[in-house]
């Protein structure tokens, strides 16, 4: 009983600390299945901790997300990736934390862009068949979460669960 109560207090404390803070999830190309699963999972997890979450992606990635979550139960805010980059560069918007999902060189390049234009604490979420090599190629300031995951989201989920914000 006491453990449950303590956990409850900790969760409440975490929620209070992150209240009003803004998180951005940047989706890469949606061709690897674990990405969508992890984006929905992480959005839900962050929201429960009090974060204001925005998910950015290409038109295709946002469509996939909206079809999977038709009543916006998990994801309320979505934005076009290239439009968002313009808004961050023009300082119309910025975030406290950014999770950039990537499984290809192009995804890694988008991560580098956010590292340069945003003040957010950046997490590079690297997955897919070549996750290890891609993770090693990241030489810009970012905290790396790397898991060789394509169909099974659990290796990536386990690492994301260890992130302390």
């Amino acid at each position, binding site marked *: 009983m006491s453990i449950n109560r303590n956990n409850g207090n900790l969760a409440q404390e975490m929620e209070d600390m992150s209240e009003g803070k803004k998180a951005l999830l940047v989706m*890469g*190309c*949606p*061709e690897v299945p674990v990405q969508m699963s992890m984006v929905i999972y992480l959005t839900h997890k962050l929201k429960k901790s009090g974060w204001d979450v925005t998910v950015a*992606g*290409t038109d*295709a*990635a946002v469509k996939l997300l909206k079809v999977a979550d038709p009543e916006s139960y998990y994801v309320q805010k979505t934005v076009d*990736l*290239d439009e968002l*980059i*313009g808004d*961050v*560069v023009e300082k119309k918007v910025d975030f406290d934390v950014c999770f950039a999902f990537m499984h*290809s*060189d*192009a*995804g*890694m*390049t*988008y991560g*580098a*862009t956010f590292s*340069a*234009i945003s003040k957010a604490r950046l997490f590079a979420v690297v997955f897919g068949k070549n996750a290890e090599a891609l993770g090693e190629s990241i*030489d*810009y300031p970012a905290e790396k979460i790397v898991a060789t995951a394509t169909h099974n989201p659990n290796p990536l989920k386990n690492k994301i669960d260890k992130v302390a914000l």
Partner: protein
Amino acid sequence: MSCVEQMKYKLHLERTSFKEAREYIEKNSDEVYYVNPGYKIFKDYYIIGVPPVAMGVRGTEMLFTYVKPCHGTFVMGIDSEEEIARLRENELEKIKKSLKSASPKGKADSGAAPASFADMYKK
């Protein structure tokens, strides 16, 4: 869709890595300039890239990287004297800024210089 896709462009390299695209620009341009990610060109395209982001000038053509999440990096070329002039101006501004930031150090050094022979002996 960005405005650059609606312009008259040439594709010099398709679906490659960002590193290869940068090397192509460096090797195949008369002039090479480096910009930060987010540098705006034309009406609404903000350059995506890993710093240093190379942009090239070849005659009247500006060479730059164009990244699409599902297709990789492209090297595009668009004729635009206006954008080339802006790129050169941006480089001049960078040089001016670096000179300005270096000048206080120069002043401090000159301030530390002895005012008279007596001061030299003190040293």
